[in-house]
């Protein structure tokens, strides 16, 4: 059975889901280390969560049964939501592989393999991927669920409670995975053929963005005990609540039947849509395998006149960056999903901050996440082996200009867009002072860009990338510290600029001077050093100096 063509194909497709073609061998190795580091951080946070849960359930031990059940239900909603989120994110990340593509068909149709086997193997690989992911997450979250079993839960023994939670969780994961497949399937079916790739890429970026935006809401679910007690209206609109309702219903809580109905209907509907799109695409496979004829339209950006020869290289790099961002799903995904995390934090802030404080604080989470996100996207290469053309045309005279093109991109996407997004709300609240706020935010953002890009010496998307060069837990702590310091200091400077502009002006001058210093240093460094096309792990050894007197 191992050697059946369908089994061989399924294994091949499964392996391809972990193929990060944009990384070099060294980069892929380092990425594995990064993932292990990230898993270590997640374990650390999980242990922290266990401590929080232990304290919570210790306090609830003597509480009335109703209160305990409501709290446990809210926590179960949180755990189920977390599971659903991770499964949906994983399936969305491999969205490009949900259906066989042109390459699959060009290679496989030449072999004695049927279309049914190709589609079946693809589906099997996806199911195994989603199932492994779901099982891993289920196992990781089980200790937290176990804590909620210790108290007086009303009806049902421990085994039946575990069975109800597991069944509800399994159906919830299935719904999450099928929803992504169904969305993708519908999109492939209804999108105009000539724009299928672009629309698919855009939809995937948007979906990842929405997932990240949902995170702060998921984080609030453990505090939703009251909503469960009083049957809040929003439960009917929150998918994790449907499946938590299913768990309660399986334990004999008849009052949750409306939620059960929604859970089962939604799961069945997504299953039908996913299956139907698979079947339709199976019959009309030309839709996914044959390349559409592009509409004749002039490409944007490349037709613009160039002012001078000196700026020619910078214009070339800027146009290259614009086009790559416009067409590369990977790079869009990096920026959109990370910036959505910032958006999620701002949405979360709506609940906990007063409107004035929120408007003074909101630009900074977006900037501190947006700037590194864009920098990261520029560091990830596109077609790494095609960079020879930049190496051959490398010219020291224009190093500062081409490096500057990357810096300008980071400012435009990581600072200007967040500032522009918040500005209309600030204008409504602060009136004319919003102009001042925009100026100060831009100044702070520019300083951050210059600081983070101070050692940047490559052309965007052309340098091989080795991720995870640092120690991940240390990077996490540093990132968290930078976030807190930057957002607090930025908000404080804005508040001072509104209340006492004359005093704040001194700080503006200091920031501007420091920024200009960094800019000059970067330009000098770029002109003096060669551009980087290869990324390496740090080889510097930090001596312990044990023998120093």
């Amino acid at each position, binding site marked *: 059975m191992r050697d059946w063509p369908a089994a061989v194909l399924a294994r091949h497709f499964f392996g391809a889901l972990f193929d990060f073609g944009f990384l070099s061998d060294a980069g892929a190795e380092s990425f594995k280390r990064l993932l292990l580091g990230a898993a270590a951080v997640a374990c650390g946070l999980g242990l922290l969560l266990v401590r929080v849960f232990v304290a919570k359930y210790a306090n609830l031990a003597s509480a009335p049964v109703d209160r305990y059940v409501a709290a446990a239900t809210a926590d179960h909603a949180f755990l189920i939501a977390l599971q659903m989120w991770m499964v949906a994110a994983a399936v969305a990340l491999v969205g490009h592989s949900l259906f066989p593509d042109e390459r699959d068909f060009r290679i496989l149709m030449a072999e004695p393999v049927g279309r049914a086997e190709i589609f079946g193997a693809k589906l099997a690989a996806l199911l195994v991927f989603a199932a492994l992911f779901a099982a891993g997450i289920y196992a990781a979250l089980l200790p937290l669920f176990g804590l909620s079993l210790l108290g007086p839960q009303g009806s049902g023994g421990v085994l039946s409670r575990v069975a109800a939670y597991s069944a509800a969780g399994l159906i919830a994961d299935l719904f999450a995975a099928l929803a992504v497949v169904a969305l993708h399937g519908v999109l492939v079916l209804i999108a105009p053929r000539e724009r299928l790739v672009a629309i698919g890429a855009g939809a995937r970026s948007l979906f990842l963005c929405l997932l990240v935006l949902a995170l702060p809401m998921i984080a609030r679910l453990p505090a939703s005990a009251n909503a469960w007690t009083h049957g809040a209206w929003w439960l009917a609109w929150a998918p994790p609540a449907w499946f938590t309702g299913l768990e309660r219903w399986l334990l004999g809580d008849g009052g949750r039947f409306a939620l059960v109905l929604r859970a089962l209907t939604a799961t069945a509907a997504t299953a039908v849509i996913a299956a139907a799109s698979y079947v339709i695409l199976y019959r009309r496979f030309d839709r996914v395998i044959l390349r559409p004829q592009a509409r004749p339209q002039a490409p944007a950006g490349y037709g613009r006149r160039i002012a001078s020869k000196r700026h020619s290289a910078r214009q070339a790099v800027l146009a290259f960056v614009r086009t790559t961002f416009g067409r590369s799903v990977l790079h869009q995904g990096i920026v959109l999903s990370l910036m959505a995390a910032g958006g999620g934090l701002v949405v979360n802030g709506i609940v906990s901050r007063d409107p004035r404080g929120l408007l003074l604080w909101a630009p900074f989470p977006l900037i501190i996440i947006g700037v590194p996100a864009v920098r990261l996207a520029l560091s990830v290469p596109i077609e790494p*082996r095609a960079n020879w053309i930049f190496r051959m045309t490398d010219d020291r005279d224009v190093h500062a200009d081409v490096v500057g093109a990357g810096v300008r991109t980071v400012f435009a996407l990581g600072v200007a867009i967040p500032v522009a997004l918040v500005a209309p709300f600030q204008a409504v609240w602060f009136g004319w002072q919003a102009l001042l706020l925009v100026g100060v935010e831009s100044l702070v953002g520019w300083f951050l860009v210059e600081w983070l890009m101070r050692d940047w010496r490559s052309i965007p998307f052309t340098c091989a990338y080795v991720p995870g060069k640092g120690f991940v837990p240390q990077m996490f702590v540093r990132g968290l510290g930078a976030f807190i310091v930057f957002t607090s200091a930025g908000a404080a400077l804005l508040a001072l600029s509104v209340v006492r502009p004359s005093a704040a002006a001194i700080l503006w001058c200091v920031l501007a001077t420091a920024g200009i210093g960094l800019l000059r240093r970067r330009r000098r460094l770029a002109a003096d050093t060669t551009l980087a096309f290869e990324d390496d792990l740090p080889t510097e050894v930090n001596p312990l100096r044990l023998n120093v007197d």
Partner: protein
Amino acid sequence: MLQARGLTKRYGGLLAVDRVDFDLRPGEIVGYLGPNGSGKSTTVNMVVGLLEPTAGSLTLDGLRLSDDPIAYKRRIGYVPEEPHLYTHLTAAEYLTLVGRLRRIAAPVLEARVATLLRLFQLHDSRYQTMTAFSKGMRQRVLVAAALLHNPDLIVLDEPFSGLDVNAGLLFRALLRLLADEGRMIFFSTHRFDMVEKLCSRVVVLSAGRVVLEQPIVAFDRAGAGSLEESFVRATRQADYAPLAREIFDTIRGA
């Protein structure tokens, strides 16, 4: 004139190219031949400045690569062995990118890109990204990009790979024209027929060393003195008939 003197490349303990010398004069097309792994592509990469030699020098009309690599590379057009391109760009976008990096003035570049696209029969696909291009189409884009700035030295690594017969004939005629106009053409290939039809001289490399260098007219059309026989003798290739028999026996037994 391009002069390579004592060109050497060492990767750790592996000597890829060992003290290679050759000259390439204006108007000459030199064929650079050698078995797989003989160091041809390494030499090409050093000639175009993508790889730094461990030892030796490259001089183009008196300008040493090590002294001014930018000025040296500005005079070179290069067609790599594999069609490594930014396939998310259209052919026009890619040529414009290359032209701008080569600092060609905008009006000249615009006109030249449009004309080259038409002449290389890429005009109909000008708004398509190169993801959908065949290998031959990508090869034509690379050739157009290599000639865009009217280089003095054209370095070609298997340039006919993927080109159809018509495109191959066009390219051959173009290379001859460029050589007649005084351009230097350095041409690495496995295609003896193309070398015989195009080149004025051949340099044969084996295990990183030059083992044969002579004008094309010195070879007979056929027999022991032909280019192919001379190549096999110079590179000490094995007799392939027994190997072919062994492969045939293996698949027959399968």
